[in-house]
């Protein structure tokens, strides 16, 4: 179990380096997809049930899909992958930095890597994460309303930003 957590954490780092090292957005979006899939796995390994599902559905299935088709706006004939020289230099620099940080801060870690910490000691159907999200609907009702209003506001913000012709964020188009 701790080996699985170790592998998933390593893949999170790899995805993060792959996104930050300035490849073409097609490949950066792929790195982010891998990161979110593996992040879901990490949350499952630490005992969550609802939060990783939300992560997969909303983040990966909602936001990443939109980023993936928005990558058509940054189309170029020869996209830079991770084999390109300038991208490889960034990758090398980030891997070096991350390796040094891990060696310095985590070099003597010989302890617990990961596993499910639980208080009840038995298999339950409704786990902690789901109860917490239920609390958002119960005592956190006003925050939910505020979030909904914020999303509605964002809709109007987006519509005004891409409005052309007479007013908005576009010049003369």
């Amino acid at each position, binding site marked *: 179990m701790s080996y699985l957590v170790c592998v998933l954490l390593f893949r999170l780092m790899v995805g993060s380096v792959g996104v*930050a090292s300035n490849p*073409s957005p097609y490949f950066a*979006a792929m790195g982010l997809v891998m990161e979110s899939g593996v992040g879901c796995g990490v949350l499952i390994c630490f005992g969550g049930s609802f939060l990783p599902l*939300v992560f997969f559905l909303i983040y990966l299935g909602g936001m990443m899909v939109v*980023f993936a088709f928005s990558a058509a706006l*940054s189309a170029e004939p020869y996209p830079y992958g991770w084999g390109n020289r300038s991208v490889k230099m960034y990758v090398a620099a980030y891997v070096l930095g991350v390796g040094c940080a891990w060696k310095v801060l985590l070099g003597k870690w010989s302890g617990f890597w990961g596993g499910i910490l639980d208080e009840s000691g038995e298999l339950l159907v409704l786990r902690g994460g789901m109860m917490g999200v239920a609390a958002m609907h119960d005592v956190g009702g006003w925050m939910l309303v505020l979030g909904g209003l914020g999303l509605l506001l964002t809709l109007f913000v987006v519509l005004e930003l891409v409005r052309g012709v007479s007013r908005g964020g576009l010049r003369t188009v």
Partner: protein
Amino acid sequence: MTPIQMTFSTMFLLGLMGLTFHRTHLLSALLCLESMMLSLFLATSLWALQLSTINIATVPMLLLAFSACEASSGLALLVATARTHGSDHMQNLNLLQC
């Protein structure tokens, strides 16, 4: 520092460095911002799961909602940039440069 804390801290810092340094496309800056949001979601979810403070599990949900707002605003800006300048290259956004 525990390995999982080290992981999401490093992910946040890598995304921040990727957002800050020179890049070609506006969309790759937005993707680095998304990786920062991912690390924050992981951090707050693991807080709720590992410390068994169950009420904190509302924080990642609301964080995801507001991060969706921010991502959609960023993509609207990307569309506006692509429609005025023809591409989303960062070097074209130089009207305020002296």
